């Protein structure tokens, strides 16, 4: 079957799985909502933009006795469905659970997509989304905001995001010489910087006093605090970033053969590497900033999908992303239903590890 058809078929299938997982997960919790009600509540949210307009309001200019016209776009929506659902159910599903479930789906997608790209780029089965230090950097930023009183609490996500990007850029900069960035150097620089920043996080952690529990929970996955605003930036960044990565899937296939081969097959090696590293880093940082450090999704999901759909990134990347989303939604559902509300990072490791080991034995996988 041809790659594009395979990509379409598998992706459609996994998209359905993802939707089903979301519906099931949104029904689970202290109040059980039957899947049909969840689906109805979700369908009721469908809104089709029908009219666009601009209303102009006047705002006062400080210190000057004048007003400025401020145009604001208004969008009229047509909501075609109004299925009968108990309003409490709809509130629970839409306002409380859905942001968390969608955030899990988004972050899972992003981490799995970034992990797939990093494994290909580094030609290394141990590569994961934070191989060049994104998560560790974000962790330092987040932990600093939590523990140090100088930072306002709302700075947590922006700081984590920026520190993640900054760390990745720093590692890239350290590993670059004469316009070339050998992946081996990049990998080692990443390991060293991660060790350094890990020390910083540990220090902040032991001096954190009262906020230690908060720090630990953030470090093990932080989906429980999810609100709709958390999705405002994360969803578009991850979605666009993943699609952009997908556009480079064919280049990534060639790059896997080695950089010189890739050059001979028409890939602008250093530029492509920069783009892929940049996109994967932004996607990872966007996820980690709102959800904390969630391990294993970006490492295991690409491996599992590679076993199932093969190494062609045109197929592997979208399927990994969708599977990563579904996996994290499911893991989060389990995490929510445990009495102690075990952090999702623990669930991903406990669920993903043995499954991967099983595949490893069954399919005799030794490399990528």
């Amino acid at each position: 079957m041809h790659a594009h058809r395979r990509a379409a078929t598998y992706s459609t299938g996994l998209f359905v799985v993802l939707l089903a997982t979301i519906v099931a997960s949104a029904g689970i919790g202290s109040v059980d909502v039957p899947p049909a009600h969840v689906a109805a509540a979700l369908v009721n949210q469908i809104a089709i933009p029908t009219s666009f307009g601009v209303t102009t309001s006047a705002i006062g200019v400080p210190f000057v006795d004048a007003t400025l016209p401020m145009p604001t776009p208004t969008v009229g929506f047509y909501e075609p469905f109004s299925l009968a659902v108990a309003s409490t159910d709809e509130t629970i599903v839409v306002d409380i659970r859905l942001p968390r479930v969608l955030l899990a789906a988004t972050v899972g997608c992003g981490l799995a997509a970034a992990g797939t790209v990093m494994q290909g780029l580094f030609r290394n089965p141990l590569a994961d989304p934070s191989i060049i230090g994104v998560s560790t950097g974000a962790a330092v930023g987040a932990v600093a905001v939590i523990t140090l009183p100088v930072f306002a609490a709302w700075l947590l996500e922006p700081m984590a995001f920026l520190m993640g990007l900054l760390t990745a850029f720093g590692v890239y900069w350290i590993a670059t010489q004469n316009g070339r960035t050998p992946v081996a150097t990049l990998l080692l620089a990443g390991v060293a910087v991660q060790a350094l920043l890990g020390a910083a996080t540990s220090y902040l952690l032991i001096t954190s006093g009262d906020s230690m529990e908060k720090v630990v929970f953030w470090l093990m996955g932080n989906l429980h605090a999810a609100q709709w605003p958390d999705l405002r930036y994360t969803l578009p960044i991850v979605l666009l970033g993943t699609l952009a990565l997908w556009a480079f899937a064919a280049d990534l296939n060639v790059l896997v053969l080695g950089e010189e081969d890739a050059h001979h097959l028409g890939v602008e090696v250093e530029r492509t590497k920069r783009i892929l590293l940049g996109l994967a880093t932004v996607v990872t940082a966007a996820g980690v900033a709102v959800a904390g450090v969630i391990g294993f999704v970006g490492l295991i999901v690409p491996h599992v999908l590679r076993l199932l759909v093969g190494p062609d990134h045109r197929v592997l990347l979208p399927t990994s992303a969708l599977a990563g989303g579904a996996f994290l939604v499911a893991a989060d559902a389990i995490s929510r239903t445990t009495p102690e509300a075990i952090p999702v990072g623990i669930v991903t490791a406990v669920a993903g590890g043995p499954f991967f080991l099983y595949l490893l034995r069954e399919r005799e996988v030794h490399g990528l």
Partner: protein
Amino acid sequence: MTAPESGEDDHEAVDTPSNSSLSPAIDVEGIEASFGEESVLDGVDATVEPGELVGLVGPNGAGKTTLLRTISGALTPESGTVRVASDDEERRLEDVQALSSAASSRRIAVVPQTTTLSFSFSVRQLVEMGRHPHRSRFQAPSAEDRDLVDAAMERTRTARFADRSIEDVSGGERQRILLARAIAQDAPVLLLDEPTANLDLHHAVETMTLARELAETDGAAALAAIHDLELAARFCDRILVLAGGEIVANGAPEAVLERDVLAAAFDARIAVEPSPIDGGVTVRALDDPEIDHRVHVVGGGEPAAAAIGRLGEAGADLSLGPVPEGDRAVSTATAFDGTTVTTARFGGVDAATRERATELAADADVVLLAAERIGGDGDPWLDVIDATDAPVVRLTDATVGAAGPDADADSENSSGDEAPPWLGRAPTTDLDSLPGAVDAIAGKSGDSGEWCGEAESADESQESDALADATLADGGVDDGEEDGR
């Protein structure tokens, strides 16, 4: 260097009428490259025409791969330019460094020596990657792409395992798959880095045949770094010898694969012999010389050829004759740069020829009699030996007179009547102890009387396998028989 006219001239052959109006597809000018302090390429000039398969030979570390990488644009030279023809009708030459990867990969296809195969792509997927330079990011493979991929796999006979994982194919198959990828790339320039390095003889011949076909039929300008000189001679239109960072020879194989050229390039003693099997050559690298004596060989046929081979490998300065032209021994002597005195195949030996042979024999430190049989009185070989004062050695195979099977060589002088007096005194030796015997007898400077015993001990110390085939020749004469083309 016994270069026929084509040899030296090819260097500036770009504008000669034989190449019509075509400009070269690869034009390399004054390339200098170095790794750190060490200069690898020191002013290399070369051109490759469309439709031409050019072999790039030279010792390890001569910079063959570096030159190929420079031409492909993977390496930026310190100075000099590499220009390659565009893939359209115009065949414009453009500096490869100024081209984007996509543009240069539409012009140049590279068959690498190895490729990373840690991902289990299928064979078809790998070959499809040859179409990557021709596709834009958002474009699905066209029907043309698929046809070219299918055709490339058909030609390289890789189609039947198209769906197998690249990790599950043999080394020879892998090489063919990489070649298929290059064919699918459909570029006017083809660079092959040691395409036969990991292949057995059969697959090496198959690969080279395909490379040759790509040049001849498809009009590609193909440049192949090859370590096997015999394969290079057999398949290439032209050979470039790269040594010490420069092109030291450039021309037709028979002109370039010549003893002195190779000896200088490879810094080794080398024997080059035309191969009777495929019209190519047999090239052998030899050990350091054991002896440095002048030996004149009297005789012909297989025994003389074998004796010359043995002495030549040991380093002796050889002459041969008189001998009918076309004799097996003549080509062997030529391979070792020996002097030969030949006669017409069915004519007698005239006085002048006899005179020249006698002079050579008189000039020698040792005269060796190596013939299956030798006639009686009036035999020119006996006359030549008679006329010289040099000590004589006999090969055990050489019999004298109207020898039948009973005439055992060791029972000297068995048929008696016509045998000259020196023959009885001439010591005998077998092929293996020949160099030692020659060394011993030449050392005695003339007195051959009680030599035999010493030769035995001498040859033990001398016994060594003179053939160092390692880097130069994978297939010797023997291998050649299997690969009839």
